[in-house]
């Protein structure tokens, strides 16, 4: 079990050792004397490359699996089979090779640029979309001591990079020279700006309690078990639960997923900012969206679900990185589940929800967290903070939803 736990790190070290050995061997063979700085610089470079390749490989595989499993899960929720045909020669493998077929299809499709499009921006938009999405995952702690890039301000880095995708969506929408695209882009920007606030606020809540902006530090702050059995994850505190839900909703909105898929709202805007994209550019957008979704789910796991900590003490023999990816899969599954269930918000309702419900709630969570922090984290603190988030929830909920709704308030008359 220790072996499994350390497998990724050991592999990395093995590669680095091998590179060093080969270099030394080459130098000895050729008689070149390396300057002092050369070997450390080379090893740094190699380790960076290892990180890049690993992250791209892992997230590409996850993207591929997600794209087929999302469709299969959605299909099952809708009582269908989903993709179950594409396999390897005559073995169908439950359609697991569907992403390969999709990739071939996307690659071989004609890449259409509308005549009136702004060709440069139209070309740059997918790149501007995928670049931030791919750097997002580097700050996540995947396991004990497995942070690709250890940043003391990791959370901030995440949000700073995440801001880039808005720009890409705007570029895509505006450059396509299509009314649907521009409207989709405007919606996307409005939505992302609105939801970034509660998203960041609910992350700040965690940073406040953990006292650090480093993802690894936040995960370490959630180590241990109260009463020896209940993990000290932030999601299991009242403020943490609320902040987690807010973060989850914000994550749905930021990754343009149902019920916040207004920018590409198919029933209204055809495909929003993606309307004029085809072939591999479209595939890149698609990929960036999914990688961004994984990254933000990973952050959610890190912030609230204890990152790589195991949920029960006697399960600690399972490697920490398994726990991380397991939790990530659960969050991703829940996003598919939400997608299978809910209809889409309308634009004004979406904005109202962000500003009138989520933002006040995130402030309430902040206050509750501060109370919890200073009231000694005991049962009393638990109760008080529950009160602080519960009351605004009821009041705001009443104001936002139930004022005019309630299906049972409607009267229906019958005539014989």
């Amino acid at each position, binding site marked *: 079990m220790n072996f499994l736990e350390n497998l990724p790190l050991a592999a990395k070290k093995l590669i680095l050792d091998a590179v060093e050995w080969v270099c030394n061997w080459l130098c000895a063979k050729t008689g070149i004397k390396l300057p002092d700085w050369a070997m450390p610089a080379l090893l740094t470079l190699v380790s960076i490359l290892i990180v890049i390749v690993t992250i791209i490989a892992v997230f590409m595989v996850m993207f591929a699996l997600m794209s087929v499993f999302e469709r299969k899960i*959605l299909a099952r*929720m*809708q*009582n*269908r089979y989903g993709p179950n045909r594409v396999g390897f020669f005559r073995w169908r493998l439950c359609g697991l090779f569907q992403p390969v077929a999709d990739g071939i299809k996307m690659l071989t499709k004609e890449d259409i640029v509308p005549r*009136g499009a*702004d060709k440069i921006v139209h070309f740059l938009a997918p790149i501007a979309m995928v670049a931030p999405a791919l750097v997002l995952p580097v700050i996540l702690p995947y396991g004990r001591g497995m942070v690709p890039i250890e940043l003391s301000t990791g959370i901030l880095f995440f949000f700073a990079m995440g801001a880039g995708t808005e720009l890409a969506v705007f570029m895509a929408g*505006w*450059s396509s*020279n*299509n*009314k*649907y695209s*521009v*409207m989709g882009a*405007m919606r996307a920007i409005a939505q992302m700006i609105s939801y970034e606030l509660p998203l960041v606020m609910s992350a700040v809540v965690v940073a406040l309690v953990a006292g650090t902006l480093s993802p690894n530090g936040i995960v370490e702050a959630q180590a241990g078990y109260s009463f020896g059995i209940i993990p000290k994850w932030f999601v299991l505190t009242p403020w943490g639960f609320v902040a987690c839900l807010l973060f989850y909703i914000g994550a749905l909105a930021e990754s343009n997923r*149902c*019920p916040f*898929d*207004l920018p590409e*709202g*198919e*029933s*209204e805007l*055809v495909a929003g900012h993606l309307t004029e994209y085809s072939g591999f550019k479209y595939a890149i957008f698609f990929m960036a969206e999914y990688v961004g979704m994984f990254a933000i789910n990973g952050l959610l796991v890190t912030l609230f679900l204890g990152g790589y900590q195991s949920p029960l003490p006697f399960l600690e023999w399972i490697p920490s990185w398994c726990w991380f990816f397991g939790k990530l899969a659960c969050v991703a599954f829940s996003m598919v589940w939400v*997608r*299978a*269930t*809910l*209809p*889409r*918000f*309308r*634009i*004004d*309702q979406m904005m109202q929800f962000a500003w009138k419900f989520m933002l006040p709630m995130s402030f309430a969570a902040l206050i509750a967290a501060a109370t919890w922090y200073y009231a000694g984290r005991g049962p009393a603190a638990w109760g008080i903070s529950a009160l602080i988030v519960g009351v605004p929830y009821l009041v705001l909920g009443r104001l936002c*939803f139930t004022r*005019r*709704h*309630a*299906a049972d308030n*409607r*009267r*229906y*008359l*019958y*005539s*014989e």
Partner: protein
Amino acid sequence: MSFQPHTTSLSKANGAGASTLDVSLGPQHPSTHGVFRMNVRMDGETIVKLQPVFGYLHRNHEKLAEKNSWLGSMPYTDRLDYICPITNNWAYAVAVEKLAGIEVPERAEYIRVIVGELTRIQNHTAFLGFILGDMGAWGSALMYAFREREKILDLFEWLTGARMMVNYMRFGGVRCDLPVGWLEKARAYVETYPAFLDEMEQLLTGNEILLARLQGVGVLSGERAINGGLSGPVLRASGVDYDIRKVDGYGVYPRLNFRIPRGTVGDCFDRFMLRILEIRESIKILQQAFAQIPEGPTLNPAVKQRGFKPPAGEAYGRIEGPKGELGFHLISEGGEKPYRYHVRPPSLINLTLLEEMCLGTKIADVMVILGSIDIVLGEVDR
């Protein structure tokens, strides 16, 4: 007009100074229920003008019927509102029977009521799925609705040989009697239906997002609905008590005990709920019809189907179709072909107040309002 966001701002699209945006929604658009088109002028995302454009699915239905024999138009009526072909058959048969003064055997009338109400159920079920699709839900409700609709279509296939293009009604009855065991199977199916409807209601009617999307959207007053000539669930959602099953009392409906639900607000949510309530009433009708259906002939033997020649005259026959008043206006010169054949399609006439319902709403609401009217382009454009 050309749209060039690169050189202008978003608002430039309609020429200098204008602050609105013209968008042509359709005919190729994911949620226009076919090839419907709306020319929409928007201020931001708010609709300030909406012009429906019909006719992309025009198939010359009425003129074809005037070139065809009386019987030969029957299969074409399947293709009017292809979601519920049996009621189209029924309306045409009612009109011709009225024109020629044909008696319909009692068993045939019961069969007509049974298949007609099954059609209403499957139409409204499909509606529940469609409107969720218009609201942007990813098809779960639609798939559940189609799962159930499929079972009704199986019954139709067993009965008529085709799932949708049934060509079932004949002048003075129905084409063939119920197969052995059909009635039991249909009854068993109808017994299971309320459970499914409860599940759908659990999925849909309490959902906060759905409520927010439907309530207060596309409000239509009863007065306007009457003035616009609306009919069916759209009219009754606005609080007007008008159902041709009660008004005309055609077929054996007067013998059946059922109620007509109607709404109080007239918004999309009322139209949505009304479909659910109507399904529940239809189930009651079906249960009574299953119990009461007598033995006997299913086709009036006096009527010659081939070379059918009604006496010269004029008749307007109508029924309460799932989407509203479906009527056929026929003029006969006593020949083998109708002189004039006109359809009163509920989808088209319900659509005429679309702009009025949509003004001032958001573009996303337009799709929901259009969905709540429940149109089928085959019937709108004919």
